[in-house]
């Protein structure tokens, strides 16, 4: 596997393909390519690809950054558990800075509330073992991080850990693509599909995209992966081909990872779910099955005095997420919403579209 990764980082091959593509796109192309996944967004910037193909090909960052789409009501729920129920919140670090109602997990931590950062879900076990307090793990992410959350629950069960529960903010990538497709919002000329998610669920999972007549390619994350994906998309667009192709076959199969899918299906069920800026999405999220109620923080705690004030109306991250507008078209961008004072998660997350644009604009600024 090491050799495979190094191959897809290979400088000479990447530079060669990069030069070829820069020439290729000059042939009358005027395309919008959406990369679904936040890590693709991040890497396209990091490798220096994002603006290299302008004005012929524009990369549009899609709704695939898990932190970006975590909604206010979900944050409010986490803050409620922390402030009113006195639990220890365990989370991935990305979520720390995301603001709601002038608060964030970071500011609450500074007030003395206990927020623990973990690098993988399973580490939450150690946090719970070292305290008598109730601990709640925030299950954030797409299908990619669900097996981790599932493993945490199975291990808690096995080790008879009583003071640990999870609140599932997990989101369904298939549902959001479907929802956007049905709304006619997906007006891109091609989609780079998420490699990590596909490694778990298999590329067949996204087969409904074919009905939206948008060519799509499942791609990996190394520089050569991304350029191969773009090249494949250009081939498909030229030939008028629709459907899904996969150029990430070293990690992704048609049917996905059977074991992981089994675990996901065993523990989780689809539920309607609120996506930041995109609103309620049918089957857009996952919650724990009833069988696992004991581990579900939403069931373990009472939410009698839970109050929620919808502040998202000030944020038009949703239009940014689906590529409807560019970050600079948002009235808050760079005015009120900056990396130091982020309003929406598109600016908070280092995968966020707005933060990425903010950084880039300074090169030519």
């Amino acid at each position, binding site marked *: 596997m090491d050799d495979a*990764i190094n191959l897809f980082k290979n*400088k000479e091959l*990447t*530079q060669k393909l*990069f*030069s070829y593509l820069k020439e290729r796109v000059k042939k009358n192309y005027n395309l919008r390519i959406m990369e679904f*996944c*936040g*890590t693709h967004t*991040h890497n396209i*910037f*990091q*490798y*220096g*690809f*994002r*603006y*290299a193909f302008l004005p012929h090909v524009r990369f549009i960052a899609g709704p695939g950054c*898990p*932190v970006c789409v975590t909604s206010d009501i979900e944050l409010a729920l986490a803050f409620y558990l922390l402030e009113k129920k006195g639990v220890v919140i365990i989370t*991935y*670090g*990305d979520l*720390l*800075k995301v603001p709601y109602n002038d608060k964030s997990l*970071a*500011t609450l*931590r*500074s*007030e003395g509330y206990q927020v623990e*950062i*973990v*690098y993988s879900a399973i*580490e939450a076990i150690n946090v719970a073992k070292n305290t008598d307090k109730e601990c709640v793990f925030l299950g*954030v*992410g*797409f299908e*990619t*991080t669900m097996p981790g959350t599932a493993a945490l629950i199975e291990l808690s069960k096995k080790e008879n850990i009583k003071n640990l529960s999870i609140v599932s903010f997990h989101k369904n990538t298939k549902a959001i693509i479907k929802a956007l497709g049905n709304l006619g919002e997906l007006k891109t000329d091609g989609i780079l599909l998420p490699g*990590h*998610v596909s490694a778990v669920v298999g590329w067949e999972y996204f087969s409904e995209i074919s009905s939206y007549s948008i060519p799509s390619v499942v791609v990996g994350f190394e*520089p050569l992966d991304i350029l191969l994906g773009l090249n494949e998309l250009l081939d498909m667009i030229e030939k008028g081909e629709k459907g899904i192709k996969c150029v990430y076959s070293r990690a992704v199969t048609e049917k996905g990872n059977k074991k992981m899918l089994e675990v996901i299906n065993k523990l989780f069920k689809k539920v309607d779910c609120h996506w930041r800026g995109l609103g309620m999405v049918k089957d857009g999220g996952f919650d724990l099955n009833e069988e696992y109620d004991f581990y579900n923080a939403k069931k373990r705690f009472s939410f009698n005095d839970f109050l929620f004030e919808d502040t998202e109306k000030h944020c038009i991250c949703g239009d940014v997420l689906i590529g409807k507008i560019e970050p600079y078209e948002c009235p808050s961008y760079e005015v009120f919403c900056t*990396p*130091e004072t982020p309003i929406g998660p598109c600016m908070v997350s*280092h*995968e966020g579209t707005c933060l990425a644009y903010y*950084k*880039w604009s*300074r*090169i030519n600024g």
Partner: protein
Amino acid sequence: MDRVLITVGSGGKKSLSFINEEILSRFCNDKLAVLADGAHIDNDIIVTTDTFTVFPPFFDGGNIGKLAMCGMINDLASMGAEPKYMTMSLVIEEGFSLEKLRLILDEMKFYCEKFNIVLVTGDTKVVEKNKLEGLIVNITGIGKRYKNIVLPQRFYKPGDSLVLTGPVGEHSIAVLKAKGVINFDGNLNSDVAPLWEPVKALIDGGIKIKFIRDVTRGGVSAVLNELAIFANIKLEVYEERIPVNNIVASVCDIYGFDIYSLACEGRLVIVVPEEDVKKTLEILKSNTLTEQSEVIGKVIETGKSMVVLNTIYGGKTILDMPLGEILPRIC
């Protein structure tokens, strides 16, 4: 109520705005305003201070004692000063292992002897158990300006070269491993090291040094951005030339850390005029602590504060001031 967030201590943008809003606004004077690693308090006397809070206090390649000594020595070296005297304050958690404390103090003694540094005064406090994790070490270093060198200089010109004295991020990754938050096969030591000798060799070699800064919290990104802001210059950096250890690169790949924001404790960024760069590299490469030195970029324009990274693959991106804590990405 406004409160102090952890990011204030991270060495990035938030640290800078805290210093501006809370410190400089109250105490501003011509010595402090330079925001250098140390200050000239008299013609030839340079003073620096630093507090060390690493947890756990022992990690691969060093401990908090070595870290404190090297941090002080490197801060003085960045000012072109030879370390002479120091003060030391210890704040220790009740119940801390005396055996460990002795190891830490022995390590500090080793560096005092090696560099002829005299400990002249100090203080010890013990706080109740659980009010502190382990111990905190504060050192004030007093150095003597070497051969009348003045650092940092104010004026830069296109072509001035940026030299980095070794691979980035090894200290951060070694500490994260010691904390138990990440794990990997293979050995990786913190890069913590005292760098007065190579700096002295550069001065002795007649190199017209314009700027030296030791890379600590905030990583090479923070140092380059501080330089760009301080001197109001645009820097271009070549990713391909930045030395990176394979283990560090792999860990960053897997956990999604920004490699250029990771802390070092034994690396310097040095700016020298273009005509001196060859000799600078010769001198640095002859010392084992700086043998992996590389020219990583240059000043390309004045009047604009910015750091542009030319990627390995032929694209361009911004190397920004780190914003806060080093956080992994979710997926």
